[in-house]
């Protein structure tokens, strides 16, 4: 027998029914991002970081002094795996199925996120391109500013439903819409 390789997104159960056009404030769920944990071994932190920041097609997200997430929306997991495993001094783990990537944007995005995270997201404090691990809606998340009014939120799959519902709840005042990006 052959296994039918149907891939299910954990938020399929949460995003159903008629999709409306996105409002100015919108939460977009990326269906199949590539996300790897990158661990730098002792003493190799700087060179791993440098290689990661120079890598094409992946965006590095800071988790800790020797840990990052490498995120790609453009190339496949095998390509990313190949590229990352070439980085000397690093160990990598595919987390593409274990993490859920959401992008939230719009003029009220900071107001919405101030109900979700404790970190000051003022653009002079949390600059474009910056990322960090933090509590978001009671879950450990990685939050990155990817634009003036755009943030990327990566959460563990098992908690994604809870985080998603809470984000939508906090966005009600600002007419936040949601949908899969693709």
């Amino acid at each position, binding site marked *: *027998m*052959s*296994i*039918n*390789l*149907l*891939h*299910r*997104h*954990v938020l399929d*159960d949460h995003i159903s029914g008629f999709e409306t056009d996105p409002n100015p404030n919108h939460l977009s769920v990326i269906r199949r991002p590539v996300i790897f*944990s990158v*661990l*730098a*071994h*002792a003493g190799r932190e700087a060179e791993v970081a440098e290689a990661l920041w120079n890598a094409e097609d992946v965006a590095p997200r800071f988790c800790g002094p*020797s*840990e990052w997430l490498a995120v790609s929306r453009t190339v496949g997991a095998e390509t990313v795996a190949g590229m990352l495993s070439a980085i000397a001094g690093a*160990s990598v*783990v*595919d*987390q*593409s*199925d*274990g*993490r859920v990537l959401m992008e939230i944007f719009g003029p009220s995005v900071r107001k919405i996120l*101030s*109900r979700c*995270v*404790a970190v*000051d997201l*003022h653009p002079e*404090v949390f600059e474009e391109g910056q990322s960090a691990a933090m509590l978001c*809606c*009671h*879950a450990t998340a990685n939050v990155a500013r990817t634009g003036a009014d755009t943030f990327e939120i990566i959460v*563990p*799959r*098992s*908690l994604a*439903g*809870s*985080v998603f*519902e*809470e984000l939508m*709840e*906090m966005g*009600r*005042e600002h*007419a936040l819409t949601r949908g899969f990006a693709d």
Partner: protein
Amino acid sequence: MTSYRLGSGGAVNRGQSLNFTFDGRTYKGFEGDTLSSALLANDQMLMARSFKYHRPRGVVTASSAEPNALMTIGLGSRAEPNARATVVELYDGLAAASQNRWPSLRHDFGAVNDLFSPFLGAGFYYKTFMWPGVLWERLYEPLIRRAAGLGKVTMQADPDRYEKSWAHCDLLVIGAGPTGLMAALAAGRAGIRVVLADEGFRLGGSLLSESAAVGGQPAAEFAAEVVEELASLPNVTLMPRTTVFGWYDDMVFGGVERVQKHVASPSPDLPMERLWRIVAKRAILAAGAEERPLVFGGNDKPGVMTAGAARTYLNRYGVAVGGKVAVFTNGGSGYRTAADLLAKGVDVTAIIDARPQSADPVPDGLRVIRNGSVIATNGRHRIEGLIAERSGFEEVIGCDALAMSGGWSPIVHLMCQRGTKPVWSDEKQAFLAPDVGGAFVAAGSAAGHASLGDCLKDGSAKAHAALDSLGRLVGSLETPEVEGEYDPSFAPLWYVPGARDKAFVDFQNDVHVGDLGLAQREGFRHIEHTKRYTTAGMATDQGKLGNVNAAGIVAGMRGVSPAEIGTTTFRPFYTPVSFGALAGTARAEHAAPVRTSPLHGWARKNGATFVESGLWYRSAWFPREGEKTWRESVDREVLNVRANAGLCDISTLGKIEIFGQGAAEFLNRIYSNSFLKLPVGRARYGLMLREDGIVFDDGTVSRLSENHYVMTTTTAYAADVLAHLEFSAQTFWRELDVRFVSATDQWAQMSLAGPKARIIMSRVVQEDISDTAFPFLAVRDVTLRGGLKARLFRISFSGELAYELAVPAGYSEAVADSIMDAGREEGICAYGVEALNVLRIEKGHVTHSELDGRTTPDDVGLGRMMAMQKPDFIGRRLSTRFGLTAADRLQLVGLKPIEADKEIKAGAHLLKDGAKPSMANDQGFVSSACFSPTLGHFIALGMLKSGRERIGERVMVWDGLRGSEVLAEVCPPVFVDPENRKLHL
């Protein structure tokens, strides 16, 4: 007509009239009114009954310190008790009800308490209702609670939403009166991030009640202009209707914003209230000052209020609090109120000034009784006159309202919430804010500045100091001129002698001067003891109005300065905060986040019943049609696994990926058993100890390549184990190159167990998984038919031939469906954690029911897993202590009932057969128990003293809690396949 709305004036919108009800009667007010100003405009001075004596009460203030005018606002599920009418913003359709009265506010049966008041002094219930003790809970307390009280809370669920939010700023300004506005303006113009919060619905504070001119224009217009400029600055956040109620560690302030409390039909998309955590680099307390009541006989009669309140109702709301107002004062505030009343055409009958002389300007024709005092008031539901006394002569003065002023107390609570006490100032006759370091300072009248001009100046100056300390100072101080300023000074007067009626200190708790005296006489002399004995300063207002007077009076009684008495402790919250706001969204099913397994959907469509396990929802059992109890389903699942095969979701087990050249050595030190020689492609069961030699967690480690391992942990300890690894690597053995990351969420993991597991699994994976190619404890990467990469482990918890298959989470439902299809002919079933638990008890495998933080490896029969030849591992050193190796320790045994139909329950105690239940006779306990469908009777695992030596002995299983006694035989803990034949099929 006594109190009434003036024909013009005030900051109310006379074009927008609002209907509201009070105790069922309909009234009209205007937009911009508070409930209290609207009630006064309708000549409704009687607003409440007092807490203990049920005395008629009116409004005393126009502020959040109001002790009397507490009402229940709203109907049904939205009814909120104890709202202060002085800060309730009027809206169309508002329904207010008075409290603590029966049958009505005007005719209250409870008022008999006032007649019995000689017996109801401070501490009366401690003395009166002492014996018998049992009656206290059953009779006295319920009676007292019914007779004395505040509003009643609704028992219906709150229909509204609440949320919490963070805010970050350079400067937080608390209070938007003259001081706060000037501070925010200076800081806002300098470009720093400013938050300006004020409890009121209109920013401006006392400027809105001010008759003086500021900057050449009416004060309220000046305030509006400043607010308009602030609103235009992108770096300034204005937060009206937001009470900053607490100052916490690290310059975090708590605030509550009443988002929709003033809205007739609240929007479902907005919260009712929002809780703020405001992180500020600097903060300025510009909360203003509270006017002190004077403590004289009958000072609680409706119509007696502070002079500042009378002035606020007049100037801000265009309401005269009476037709004939008398003034009793010890300072300039009374004169200012009299002048404003006269200017608006309100009759003022006299000023009774407690001081022998003063330089305050007296309006033409107004009578001033100097060196005078008020000793009693007439009237019942409203003051009808007062008895003034001077030099022994008494005089009745007619009035229908009395404005009193006893001086001013800076509102310093927030600055005293982190352990620092306020400081008494003889010069200001007030408690001032303590020095709590430069980041948080008081300004304006909160800092003891009395005049409007000084407040405006101080607000700018304190903002400049904050800017300077942040390195952001630009520009110079600008302060607008004030015209029509008065002299705000006052002479101290704590208590007016000669009272003919009770002279109240704390209105809300009905504490009068006599109570304070009694407390001193009976030894409750410390102000904190005085508070508890008399209840002065308790309940919803926490003594905002009365505490300073209480300190002054107690000081007078003891002949010391108020500095020696001090104040009681100020704690958050400054004003009451609703539970809704504190809970935010964390209610009902959102009380905690929910973790779902990747196979949640698969389990659901197979009919699973779920059970909470920490944050996880795990499939517990899969009922089928016709099964009436959970046991029927579980028994079927267990038997089917033993006979055929079953599929169980075990994705919730923690999975930790481990890398590095030091990983082998690291694992060798983390586990009690050896890991150095674990071959690639093999899994090993491991025990982790705590440093005290007790088992911490168990699990498996598989070596995937030379320097790459994957560890599984129990579901419950996944987070603790990862933290333990991180801690050990970071602090104990920094020389070892080892790195970890959790991959729990990446992999769905399922256990396929049963004699037919191999046949089924071989239909799913491409590789050879025969016993030779893939023996017990083998591990390898596999490719599923269809191409998916996965990890296969030959590990068994059930005691059957079993495989654990890990697949990327998103594919798990498809894979599980395929396995179910592949096993249909073999009679596969889905099984849940309840069946898994039965399977492992039958097999004698331990879980945290046995590894309960008290057991050593040897206790649970795993002594062979102590690799003592290793020089070091966590827990090694203390594992050999005498206490942990004693022969009479509790040891793991099996238990089976002598009479086969008897049930053994977990938690029951084990006694020697025939011994009486007592601690002395306690021999151990049942750690896990279940019905074994395989054996057809109940079985159990237990911890029994020297248990391994007692196989075959009879013990009494005594369950005192549920009242059962079952005779059981001690047996080895492995009930099924003790020779492990099934594992190696």
